[in-house]
């Protein structure tokens, strides 16, 4: 979860208005360096092979990684979603295998078997940032290249015009549990975010994506664990399944968690003060580390990701709305080979 969420700034009840008034000030907090490649077309990563990335991410390093704070085989893909769908206002891409929903709960319950068919598309993202080991949550999404992970924008780029990319050792571990990698590790070869996140740093656009290489076994991501569907332009008033790997207490980051069938609560009032589509609030008691965790709607379709929360209200989770910019991001990611 974003630092402006559970972390320092967003721990205060109203401090986000500070962000609304001086978002650029916030953008400069990290001392970020403008990167020539910060144009909204993503950046390629010269990652070593999965074997080498896997050697870097030992169980001890994965356990030490801190939440990023500021911040089935895909064989049923529809007709060329990456090219045609991105231009549409609303669209729903089917998952590789729709699943039945769980019973409702706003408590972040432990998932019994994160390697099960119902849970293995969700995982932990590890990377290096600002000299340390960092982590987020992410979701494998059905795409033409079978290799797309969706997460929060602040898990790939620090955001805003002075933002910088998190290129170091960026890898996705689906089905992670207590240092185990049941489906191996998938290093990123390309990361990107929405144009709005890259140019303004507005949390209304805090969505990111990566295209990953094959794992140590030579499998593509969606071949190994499948991919959730994805939809954009949907009504905000949905019932969501919120997935993620929260790290901050009372959680430990070692188990996958799920808030089942949690309803849309409304928009953050502060979301109105920034550009972009109004973000969404749901009833789910996530903590740091859950950033980027997928919000799925019926039939296992991704329709949001965890972005931030407030320190004085641990029971509410906020995420960016999936609109046109997310559609474009999905389109770009699906074309990467």
């Amino acid at each position, binding site marked *: 979860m974003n630092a402006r969420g559970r972390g*320092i*700034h967003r*721990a*205060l*009840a*109203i*401090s986000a*208005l*500070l*962000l*609304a*008034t*001086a*978002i*650029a*000030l*916030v*953008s*400069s*907090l990290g*001392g970020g360096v403008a990167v020539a490649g910060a144009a909204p077309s993503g950046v390629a990563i010269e990652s070593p092979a999965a074997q080498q990335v896997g050697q870097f991410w030992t169980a001890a390093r994965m356990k030490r990684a801190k939440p990023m704070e500021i911040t089935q085989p895909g064989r049923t893909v529809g007709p060329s979603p990456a090219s045609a769908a991105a231009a549409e206002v609303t669209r729903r891409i089917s998952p590789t295998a729709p699943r039945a929903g769980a019973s409702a709960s706003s408590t972040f319950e432990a998932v019994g078997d994160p390697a099960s068919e119902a849970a293995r598309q969700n995982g932990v993202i590890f990377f290096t940032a600002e000299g340390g080991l960092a982590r987020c949550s992410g979701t494998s999404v059905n795409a033409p290249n079978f290799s797309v992970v969706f997460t929060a924008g602040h898990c790939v780029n620090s955001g805003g*015009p*002075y933002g910088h990319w998190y290129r170091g050792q960026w890898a996705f571990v689906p089905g992670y549990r207590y240092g185990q990698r049941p489906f191996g590790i998938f290093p990123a070869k390309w990361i990107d975010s929405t144009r709005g996140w890259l*140019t*303004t*740093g*507005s949390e209304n656009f805090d969505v990111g994506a990566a295209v990953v290489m094959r794992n140590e076994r030579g499998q593509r991501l969606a071949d190994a664990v499948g991919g959730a569907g994805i939809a954009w332009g949907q009504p905000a008033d949905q019932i969501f399944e919120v997935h993620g790997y929260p790290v901050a207490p009372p959680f430990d980051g070692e188990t996958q968690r799920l808030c089942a069938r949690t309803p849309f*609560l*409304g*928009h*953050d*009032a*502060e*979301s*109105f*003060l*920034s*550009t972009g589509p*109004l973000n969404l*609030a749901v*009833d789910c008691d996530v903590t740091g580390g859950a950033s980027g965790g997928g919000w799925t709607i019926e039939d296992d379709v991704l329709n949001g990701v965890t972005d931030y929360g*407030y320190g*004085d*209200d641990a*029971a*509410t989770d906020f995420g960016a709305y999936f609109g046109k910019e997310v559609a474009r991001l999905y389109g770009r990611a699906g074309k990467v080979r």
Partner: protein
Amino acid sequence: MSGATRTRRLLLAIGLALLALPALASADAPGVPLPLPAGVPPQLRAELRAETGTSAPRGPFMPKFHLHAQGGYGVSVSGIGSTVTVEVARDHGRAATVYIARGTVTPGRVQASFGDLGRVAMRFLPSGQISLSKPLRHCNGASLYKSRLGVFAGSFQFKGENGYISVHAHRAKGAIRDSLAPHCVRQGPRGPAQSVARSSGDGFQSIEPESLAASWRHGVSSASFAAIGFRKDILYLTFAEQSEGALAKIRFAFTSGPAKALSINDALTQARVTPPAPFKGTGTYRAAPDGTTTWTGALSVNFPGAGHFPLTGPLFETELGAGF
């Protein structure tokens, strides 16, 4: 985060929030300058400007018109980006409710729906007159913005909650404000600094007032109250926000009064505050030896559209700060 730091940030955030609302500054612009409400005391004004390194609104353009309404209320309608606001204020802007919705804002038009409360659909008819904001020395003598004066024509209908205000207008004088984006440099005790290249932390260290801060948040609603000592006066600020579907309501009020209205004991275990209007009643804070605290009393504020808004109760997290 330490309690003292938390309190400082809360106080500053409240102050900045007060600055944010009239401007709805664009999140796109680095070093966003902000206007200061007339009632902000000079001390806080200086602190906030030093903190932000800014001084007036900036954005590509901002249409705005103003109307007077019954009951002493002033109504301002403005737009920036895709956001349209209706601000209902009284007491020279010291108590206001800002209604915010997504809409259409162009150099010639402002249009939005506020649901059951009303709607605005106005076109700008320029008079040809131009006014420039006061030239600023730290901006090399340049103005921060120019205003194209004229009249907004069309339809504006707005009815506040429970009918506390009702406005229906077809014409209103107004302006389109254009940012001139001059190059401004902040001249502080450490020498010149670019407003866009500031770090976050050190400016907060300069504020160490005696203070009481209380806030709560639940879902998409929140409220905050703060009493901050500035020399011989106490500045009182309160802020509440609420989201209802496609409409957000942000309310704020501030005033100042004599220091005797806030008492905090040396051990920071007891406090009592009785601010002047638009506040009403007294808030009492007590910290027990076991660490439990209470924040009780009849303290409330009279926001436009939300009279007697409670500012005490078990939902609030309350902190005290010692002045030094």
